[in-house]
């Protein structure tokens, strides 16, 4: 199969399909021709140096902003503004300050009702909300406002709030970055359990490489540190420089893998490939070994290349 056929197949079959996507702010290119297909059930982690455009890509996926070029498809349909099929958890601001935990968690249910329908449905909805709060071990804090919770507790409630709506894909932007290592590890475990149980698709942004390697079944690194055949002075935006498969794709691994030599060497390797400003790989030699990976090259990037390249893993 050639690259174009693979791409056209993925366009229809993948859950999320990002093709030739650019994002510029003013004259500055942030995302430079991003190609990515995500299958249902994947736990995708996205890493990269600070400011490379991870949050920007996530905002494009939720629909908070529109790309300057290219297309983003969700189950074959072009994306519009934010809808419940793409859930989101931010580092901050996921919870509404004027609502208690239980009100925050049940908000999506209540928004689906007219205010006068609330009374008759109240009991079932609150029970469901409590069930989700129990799942994240926050049932004891149901009546507290976000300001009365610790950072870790807030993120638990935020995850429950996003889970209850059963979106097709749940996007998370550094949800654990402000937490202490202990809380962070327990929430990582918790998230993996949830993923195993619900078979949801996660799109998880982090700047912590170890977190990304540990959590993801698929790791994507975005970086502006690379070279191509364009004029060396030309401004470049970030590209996907690593797209790798990690661990089993259907169940979580225990945190003990973090101390293995394989884990350490994978982290080292990706650190060099994506985070080292002096280690510049050519666009044709990126580590895009994930079976779903494919790329197109834009004009001048690669002298005399065929337009679509399947990932070497194929």
């Amino acid at each position: 199969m050639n690259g174009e056929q693979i791409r056209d197949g993925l366009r229809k079959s993948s859950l999320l399909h990002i093709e030739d996507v650019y994002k510029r702010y003013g004259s500055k290119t942030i995302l430079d021709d991003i190609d990515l297909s995500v299958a249902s059930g994947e736990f995708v982690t996205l890493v990269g140096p600070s400011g490379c455009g991870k949050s920007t890509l996530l905002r494009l996926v939720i629909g908070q902003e529109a790309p300057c070029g290219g297309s983003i498809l969700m189950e074959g349909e072009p994306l519009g503004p934010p809808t419940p099929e793409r859930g989101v958890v931010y580092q901050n601001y996921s919870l509404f300050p004027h609502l208690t935990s239980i009100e925050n968690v049940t908000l999506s249910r209540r928004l689906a009702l007219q205010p006068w329908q609330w009374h008759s449905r109240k009991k079932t909805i609150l029970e469901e909300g409590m069930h989700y709060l129990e799942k994240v071990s926050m049932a004891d804090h149901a009546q507290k406002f976000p300001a009365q919770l610790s950072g870790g507790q807030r993120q638990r409630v935020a995850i429950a709030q996003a889970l209850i709506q059963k979106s097709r894909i749940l996007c998370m932007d550094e949800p654990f970055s402000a937490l202490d290592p202990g809380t962070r590890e327990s929430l990582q475990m918790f998230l993996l359990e949830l993923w195993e149980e619900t078979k949801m698709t996660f799109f998880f942004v982090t700047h912590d490489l170890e977190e990304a390697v540990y959590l993801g079944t698929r790791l994507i690194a975005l970086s502006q540190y690379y070279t191509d055949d364009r004029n060396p002075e030309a401004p470049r935006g970030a590209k996907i420089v690593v797209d790798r498969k990690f661990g089993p794709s259907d169940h979580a691994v225990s945190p003990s893998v973090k101390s293995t030599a394989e884990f350490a060497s994978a982290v080292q390797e990706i650190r060099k490939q994506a985070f080292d400003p002096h280690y510049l790989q050519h666009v044709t030699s990126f580590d895009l070994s994930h079976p779903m990976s494919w790329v197109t090259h834009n004009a001048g990037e690669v002298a005399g290349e065929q337009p679509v390249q399947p990932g070497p893993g194929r």
Partner: protein
Amino acid sequence: MKTPKLFGLHAKPGGWFGFFLASLPFLLLIIVYMIASDARLAINPNDKVLPSFSHMADAIVRMATKPDRRSGDLLLWSDTFASLRRLFIGVGAGALVGLMVGLNTAIFPGLRAMSRSFLTFLSIIPPLTLLPILFIAFGVGETAKVMLIFIGTVFVISRDLHLYVLQLPKEQITKALTLGASDLAVTYRIVLPQIMPRLIETTRLTLGGAWLFLIAAEMISATEGLGYRIGLVRRYLAMDVIIPYVLWITLLGFLLDWLLRLAVARLYPWYRTGKE
């Protein structure tokens, strides 16, 4: 370490001593007044400028308990009622309209583009300069006075809420949309409840201006009201009525301020938590 009670950065004046410190400036003011008043009255027992406390007490008790010879009203109460009515209607309408305008122009970019310059323009007009226009347009009745208070408060409130809504994190709106909220639900079910305490606080701060417009309008044209009474008795240099009236207005303002603060704390317990 010994914490100092009064001096320095680390002083902790608490308990009775704190209460004493708070009362001190009031006590000083009263004492200075009494000395000055006694001195003037010693020279001229009929002096009207600085009446004695007993004199003022007589005057205010008379205003509060003896029906007026002409109208038969208890003047203090009928004046208070008339003034508060104007104040509440004017400020209430200003708060309501200010809330709606501020909220909607901040949320919907189309409305924002349409209204921004116009609202800025309107808000810069000094309200008192409109008073003659209002009297001509609405006559000397209640409408003109209420309108003045309304105009004096509505722009401050709407601009403040507008800016406040713009400061809410953009993520919140996106988040609400991903939870299934429609545009209107975002506006009225997510953002509106969040800005209610801010509305009350802003209204609280505009009350000072509202009193100013009320008193000014009443002094120029009215038949009753606290400002009208002060303006009226000024002609007879009746400081024994004016001073208690001023104190009474101050007390009313203080009570309103306190009630609104209490309302925010009671109704919106989440508002202050985390900000202190």
